[in-house]
Each structure stands twice: as C-alpha cells, then as structure tokens.
C-alpha cells in the first residue's frame, strides 16, 4: 500500500484512513493528556530531576565588556577555594559551534563580543561555592571599540565583530560578506521594480524600527551533563530541540572521541520555550563542563538575568520600506530593506533574517518586488529564534505602511487588503506557488466581528476609540530536509505508547499526536501515552520550532499508525482468511463488513498474536513506524534574486482586528476587543488552537505596549529582570478576545492540518499602531508603541 498517497491525498486532504467516514477524535477538543500531571504539580521539569549527593554545580565568569581582547586569565585563587572541583576556560575548549553557521564559541577564547559572554566556569560541590569561586577568577582585558547598531555596523570604519568571518562554515543558502559585519544577506528580486514604481499613482517611503525582545519563558534554561567512565555523554536539557542538540554536542565535542551514538539527550517537560529553547545556547557549556569533570553530573542553571542576556534575544530591526500603489488600490511595487541587529553570534539568528527576507511581501500578491534582508553582527547579545521568527518585525512596517497608503488614496484599508491578498497558486516572492489559503474568509470574518467601518465613540469624552485590521502569514523556517519520525507500540491491554521527539512545550503536542493515532486506530486518547524525548529511545525529530510539528510530526505519527493498522489487517487476513479490503477498525476491534459477527479485540492479539487452528500462534507485537520529510523543498536558489528554490513548505495565513480605547491625554490604551482568524487547515483540537490564539495575542500585545530591551551606550542590558522588563499580568488581559478558526485543508498535512503556534502574536504591533492613528490621528513608527509615546505625539500634534 502506498502510505504516501493516503497521507497526501490532494483536495480530500482531510479524509482519514477511514475514507468517507466522519472523524471521531480529530477535530474534537479532547482534554489534554498532560493535564493532571501539570496541574497537580507532578510534572517534572529539568531542574526538578534528582542526581544525588554527587551533583556538582557550575557558575560562570562573564565578560564586563561588549568587545575586548582577553589578555590573561588567572584561576589560581578560584582553584584553591574549598569545594571547587574544576575551573574551565576557553583554553580547555577552543571549539566553535552553530546551527546554520559555526560562529559561536563554547567559551570566549581570545575575544569577548558581548557583555555577559562566558569566559570561564567554576564547578563546585555547592552552587554558592561555585559563585564565590567565579568571583575569584581574575581576567585581564584590553577593551576594543564596539558597535551596537546594525546600520552603523555597515559603515566603512565600523569595528569588525568577526574579522575571521571568511573561515566560518555555514549552510549553502547563507551569503556572508567577509571583511564587513554582514553575516548574511538574503536578496529577493522579482518582476520589474522600476516599472512597478512608474505604474504607481502613489509612492510612499518610510522607516519603522523594532527593538529587541526577550522570550521570558517562566522556566529558566537548565542543563545537567554527565560524562561517564565508559565515555558516554548524557545531557538532561530544557530544550525544544533534543536531536539538534545531540548533533551539535557530538559535532562540537568529537575531538573527545564522542560519536552520535554516545551522546544521549533527555528532555522532559519544558516551562515555556517560544523559540528561546530552540537550538543550542547555554547547554553546550554544560556539555563541556561534564567532559571536564568525568564521572560526576554537573548542573548549569541560568539565573533570570542570564536568561535575558545570554540565551537568544529577538532581533532588532530597522525596516526601510518604499511602496507603490495604483489608484485602483493595487500594490504595483515594493522595495523593502530590513537591517537586522543580530548580535555577537548569529548561528541561529541569521536564519531569522533569511526567513523574513523570503516572505517580507506579507500575504499579498506583489509582482514587482525587491527585498534586502541583511543580518548584521553587533556587540550586543546573540539573537535567534523567537515565536514569529522575523515576521512580527517586518509586519509592523508593512502593515502600518499599507494602512497609511490606503488612507492616502481614499481606499478602505480592509478592502485594500482583500484586493491584494494572496490566492492559491499565486507566485511567491521566490517563485514557487502559494498553497490553499482561507485568508479572504479570515478578513471577512474579522471585519464582521469588529464591525469594521462603524465608527465608535467612547462614553468617556477623555477617551477615543480606534479600530484597525491587518493580515499576517508565516511559514515554518526550516532546512529543506528537516524530518520527523515516530514509533508506535501496542501493549497487552490494547493501549498504545507513542515515541516521538517533538517537544511538548505547552502547545499540546502530546494530546494532538494521541488524537491522530486514535483516529487511525480507534483506540481512545485515554489509552494512548505519548512521552517526551530521550534520543536513545525516541526516533528523530529535527526541532520543535516554526509551528511545524503538528504538521511534520503529526504526519509521522499518522504514518506510524497506518503502518500498525496495516500489520493488524495483514495478520487477520492471514489467520482468519478474510479479505483485507473487507476489514476495518472500530472501537478497538477488527471488524469485517461481510461478516457482521466477526469482532476481534485488540487486547486479544496485539502482543501475543492470534492462535491458528493448529494451536500455533501467528503475529507478535504490533508496532508501527512513520517518517516524514518534505521531499519537495529546496533551499538552493540564485543568490542575487532568490529565485529558483522552494525554501518554504507552506504558509498559514490569517487576519486580526482590534477595537482600542485610547486616553487622549495620557495615551493609556485599553483593548476593548480583539478578533483573530487563522487558517490552520484543520484544527485537530480546536480548544488548543484557541489557546494559541488567546495566549499568542497577549504575548504580542506586550511587545507593542511596554516590553523593550534597553541597553546603555556600553552595550549593557539595563533591564534583565521582571521588575524592569514588564511582561503581562492578568490585569493586562484584553476585555474580549474572539478566536476564529478557518479550515482550508493543507493537502499534505495530517487530516489537513498546518501550523498555528507562532502566527497569533505577529499581527499585534501594526494593529495597535493603526488603531492609535485611527483614534487620535498620530502615527507611531517605532516599537514599542507606549502610552508615553502616544501622549507625546498627541501633544506635538496640538502644537502644530
């Protein structure tokens, strides 16, 4: 049987193995399988694991300079402190590592490139001793000129953050410019830009800026490493990417004789990720320290401050946009230049720049298009994945600009979006074609929900009400060969264990995987256990990022379930001499369409087989395995135009609208209502999709209204804590949130599903900026759109 066909049946993509029948479990809001564990406090996170009295603790010596040469490190005093077991510096570990580009060091060797960078580590029997020991390490620095701004970093006389850039290895779709601070430059050239601007009746140019942001998962990063006497390295990490971590650990530390089989990564529940726990950051330090103290487990637990300044941050962005529009409201040309402040190391961040560069047209058909997305090194902390992966940043400028241009031309901004919205089959910025999409339905339903076109007045004369509606899209950003796989095993009682390495990061992956298997095999979700990853036991998953695991891992689980189903049907056909095509699964039994009395219970045969007439047993444990790789994807294209490849697997689209109340004097804003419609293809668990919408929106609104990483001129982060970097509390909830689910099936998705996790936070910034303008007539072009900025803009407007 061709399993591929079953899974990717076009048009009828939502049909399950039980063709023609309605879905029993998929599409239902079943309760989360990890629920009781989490709300009873039984769920174990990495820092909750016990390692016995032999556990060692590590503390770091960190750079106080944004850019400096390390002249000398004196560890003698620290080594003498009672309880200190080992002091490790860059002299012990000179390896570089990285996800897409090898530009990051385990420890700084001769140069530090941001404030907070790890220079040395002290391993001790107690966390307090480790900290005290770190304070005794003396490092002599020679300060070097530093660069803190992505645009200044392009100037001729700018200090170079990586003078050796030429020697760094990277994926073939990155284009660094050695001798400059440009780590990657993604170019898109499509159509005839000059003609597009000639055809325009209105051309508008402006600049929009977005600062850096922090993920602020409530659980800080933690990692424990054990390099045992047999030479195997086991790492317990709070991670979205156990297999990617295993690969990076094995590759980086191979000089110690490690091969992939000797490296084991175990990831239990994680207390929020949002991209911050993707790839490898502090975990490599724990791995190196484990090797430095063989035979003893060593723990590295990030403080909240380290969580802010030494994991990944969201990239800062300066977006220069020039757009041409005809009187009829058609976008005729778009020239978009994105300058990304990517920090001191861009091994992951450069792919954010790449992803944004491929898609910065937004969900619109733009025939004449030029995009320059430039990844720039600076001497600020490294940047990387953050929920939205670059799309929030360019959407702020794009969707602000579109509303302004529509208004200037006297066209309704929502009608403008409807007119330009991308359709299935339209050519994408890089030349491939758009997948099926429900964006117009999303626009219409949101417009209706916020009563678009109906002006509203606040009861309070001191306040004004503004409305706005924008669109969004996003594709998973992943290498073209990113794969998922799954094992499925039946147990004696007919229950099932599923092994995957997609991570449960709060989104509900375990529940959704159980639902997919349940649908195929007719085993209730309550009888299916899906475990978090252990790379020794669970099969490969690239990473849990990019809103791709429901789709990728879901496809693998569906294939594993279909394979198990095939084995069951083959066995019953062989032993009971029934034609396979007449057999079907129902309520944990094998049944037969031509023999209504036939019903074979799973628990009677899935482990111990079926007894034949001659008293022998046939069959054996029923298992299934499934693999999914998007075999149509390719990242190779013309570096000067970006044309030719198929780097993105599909786009999830949607629209969001807001009713915002703004105080005319203080600028204080209150979200009266927000509606967000997203086309997730098929909501395998609608309540979980709604959870992504409600949660993502608040995270997004916080980045617009108050969150903001502040640095001083020396490159020091001034607000690395929750008192000074405010994240929302329950008091910041919008009054009303309306989640709307659109389902236009993704042909190659499990039951038609595509991703939804990141999308819900990315439209927030332009929503607020556009609604503020609608309410008070002032335009804010830099994030965050704080009440202070709004109040000052109103004041300035009155003066004129």
């Amino acid at each position: 049987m061709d399993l591929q066909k079953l899974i990717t049946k076009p048009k009828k993509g939502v049909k399950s193995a039980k063709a023609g029948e309605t879905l029993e479990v998929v599409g239902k809001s079943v309760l989360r399988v990890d629920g009781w564990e989490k709300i009873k406090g039984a769920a174990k996170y990495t820092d909750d694991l016990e390692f016995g009295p032999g556990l060692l603790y590590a503390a770091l010596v960190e750079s106080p300079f944004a850019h400096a040469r390390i002249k000398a490190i004196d560890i003698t005093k620290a080594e003498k402190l009672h309880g200190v077991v080992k002091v490790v510096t860059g002299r012990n570990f000179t390896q570089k590592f990285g996800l897409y580009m090898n530009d990051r060091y385990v420890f700084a060797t001769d140069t530090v490139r941001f404030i907070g960078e790890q220079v040395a580590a002290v391993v001790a029997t107690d966390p307090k001793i480790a900290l005290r020991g770190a304070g005794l390490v003396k490092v002599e620095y020679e300060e070097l000129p530093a660069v803190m701004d992505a645009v200044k970093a392009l100037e001729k006389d700018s200090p170079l953050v990586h003078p050796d850039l030429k020697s760094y290895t990277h994926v073939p779709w990155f284009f660094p410019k050695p001798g400059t601070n440009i780590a990657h430059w993604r170019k898109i050239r499509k159509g005839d830009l000059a003609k597009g601007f000639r055809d325009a009746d209105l051309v508008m140019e402006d600049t929009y800026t977005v600062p850096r942001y922090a993920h602020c998962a409530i659980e800080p990063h933690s990692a424990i490493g054990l390099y045992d006497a047999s030479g195997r390295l086991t790492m317990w990490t709070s991670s979205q990417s156990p297999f990617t971590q295993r690969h990076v650990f094995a590759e980086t530390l191979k000089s110690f004789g490690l091969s992939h089989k000797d490296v084991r990564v175990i990831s239990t529940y994680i207390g929020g990720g949002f991209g911050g726990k993707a790839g490898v950051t502090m975990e490599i330090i724990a791995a190196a320290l484990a090797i430095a103290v063989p035979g003893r487990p060593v723990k590295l637990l990030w403080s909240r401050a380290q969580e802010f300044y030494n994991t990944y941050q969201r990239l800062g962005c300066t977006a220069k946009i020039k757009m041409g529009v005809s009187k009829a409201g058609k976008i005729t040309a778009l020239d978009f230049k994105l300058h990304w402040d990517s920090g001191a190391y861009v091994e992951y961040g450069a792919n954010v720049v790449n992803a944004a560069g491929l898609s910065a047209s937004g969900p619109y058909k733009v025939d004449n298009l030029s995009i320059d997305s430039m990844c720039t090194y600076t001497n600020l902390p490294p940047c990387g994945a953050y929920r939205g992966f670059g799309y929030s940043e360019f959407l702020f400028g794009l969707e602000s600009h579109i509303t302004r241009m529509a208004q200037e031309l006297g066209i309704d901004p929502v009608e403008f979006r409807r007119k330009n919205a991308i359709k299935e089959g339209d050519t994408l910025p890089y030349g491939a074609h758009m997948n099926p999409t429900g964006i117009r339905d999303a626009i219409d339903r949101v417009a209706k929900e916020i009563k678009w076109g109906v002006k509203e007045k606040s009861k309070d004369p001191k306040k004004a009400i503004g409305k706005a509606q924008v669109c969004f899209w996003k594709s998973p950003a992943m290498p073209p060969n990113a794969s998922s796989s799954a094992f499925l095993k039946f147990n004696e009682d007919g229950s099932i264990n599923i092994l995957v390495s997609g991570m449960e990061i709060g989104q509900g992956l375990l529940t959704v995987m159980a639902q997919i298997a349940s649908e195929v095999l007719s085993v209730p979700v309550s009888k299916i256990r899906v475990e978090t990853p252990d790379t020794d036991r669970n099969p490969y998953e690239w990473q849990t990022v990019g809103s791709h695991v429901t789709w990728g891992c879901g496809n693998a689980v569906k294939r594993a379930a279909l394979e198990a189903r095939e084995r069951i049907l083959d066995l019953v056909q062989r032993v009971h001499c029934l034609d396979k095509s007449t057999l079907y699964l129902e309520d944990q039994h094998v049944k037969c369409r031509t023999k209504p009395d036939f019903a074979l219970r799973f628990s009677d045969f899935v482990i111990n087989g079926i007894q034949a007439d001659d008293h022998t047993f046939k069959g054996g444990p029923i298992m299934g395995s499934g693999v999914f790789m998007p075999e149509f994807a390719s990242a190779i294209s013309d570096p000067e135009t970006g044309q030719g490849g198929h780097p993105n697997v599909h786009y999830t689209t949607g629209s969001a609208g807001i009713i915002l109340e703004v105080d005319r004097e203080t600028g204080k804003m209150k979200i009266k209502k927000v509606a967000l419609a997203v086309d997730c293809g098929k909501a395998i668990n609608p309540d979980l999709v709604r959870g992504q919408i409600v949660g993502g929106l608040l995270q997004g609104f916080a980045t617009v209204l108050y969150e903001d990483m502040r640095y001083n001129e020396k490159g020091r982060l001034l607000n690395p804590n929750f008192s000074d970097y405010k994240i929302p509390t329950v008091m910041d909830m919008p009054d009303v949130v309306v989640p709307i689910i659109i389902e236009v099936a993704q042909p190659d998705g499990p039951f038609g599903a595509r991703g939804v996790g990141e999308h819900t936070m990315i439209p927030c910034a332009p929503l607020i900026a556009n609604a503020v303008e609608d309410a008070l007539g002032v335009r804010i072009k830099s994030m965050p759109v704080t009440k202070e900025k709004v109040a000052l803009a109103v004041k300035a407007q009155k003066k004129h």
Partner: protein
Amino acid sequence: MKKHNIEFSLNGEKVALEVEPSDVLLDVLRGRLGIKSPKVGCDRGDCGTCTILMNGKTMRSCLALAVEADGADLVTLEGANSRKWTQKLQKKFHEKNAFQCGFCAPGIILSATELLEKNSKPTAHDIKEAIAGNLCRCTGYEPIVAAIEETVKGK
C-alpha cells in the same frame, strides 16, 4: 557560620533540619526536602512560580529565608492536592485548558486556593487581584480566570 536548627510542618508532617542563616526557603524545599512543585523562576519575587502557603497565606518562597519558616505551617501543592477547593480548581483548570507548559500552574492554583478558602464568592476583580502576582507566559490568562470563575459558580 553558625547553623540553625529549625522545625516546621510541611504538608502536615513535622520537619526538623539544620540550615545556614543564608539558606533560601525555596532552595531548602526543593534541594533538601524533595518538594518540586514550587519552581525557581526569577529569584526575586517577581514571577510567583515559587508560591507556597505559609500559615494559610501565599508567599514567595524565593524571598524567604529558611529560618523564617521555623515554627510555621507550610503547604505546597503536593499537600494542597487533597484540599477541597484545590481539587475543584484543578478539575476546572483541566477542562478549560488553564495551563499550557504548566510551569506556573502550581503557584496559580495555590493563589486561587487561598482566595476561595477565604472568599467563596469573589468578584471578577478579586480573582484577578488574587493571581496578579503569578506570571503566565503561555495562556494569556483568559482560561485561568474562566476556570476560577467556573469553580466559583460550581458549574
């Protein structure tokens, strides 16, 4: 440094141990007593994930020294799991998906338990006030408020 002998009740059981004056209560609970539901989130009282009940009142165990617990009655979620309001809340938290990653859930459920044990008919504002010191980055709080409201209504 002079060590201190302290005694307290933890989830209904007597505990006696020797601590240093600088030992933080959260670290003692997690590191020495195997109590893992209170989590380390920020170490400065901002996030509420280390919430426990001391003498019936919620407190941030990362801001208390272990010596302050001498003679006190401490309850963590491990112990509160058997309390009436905690159980009612947990049922609704499950039904309403009032958690995602689950890291903040123990603290929030304890804050809500404290509220309902004192006031079984809180207003919407009381509910928000009660959990305003507990940060959740996943849910957007709406399902949490809904779960507590439904617990109150006894739906």
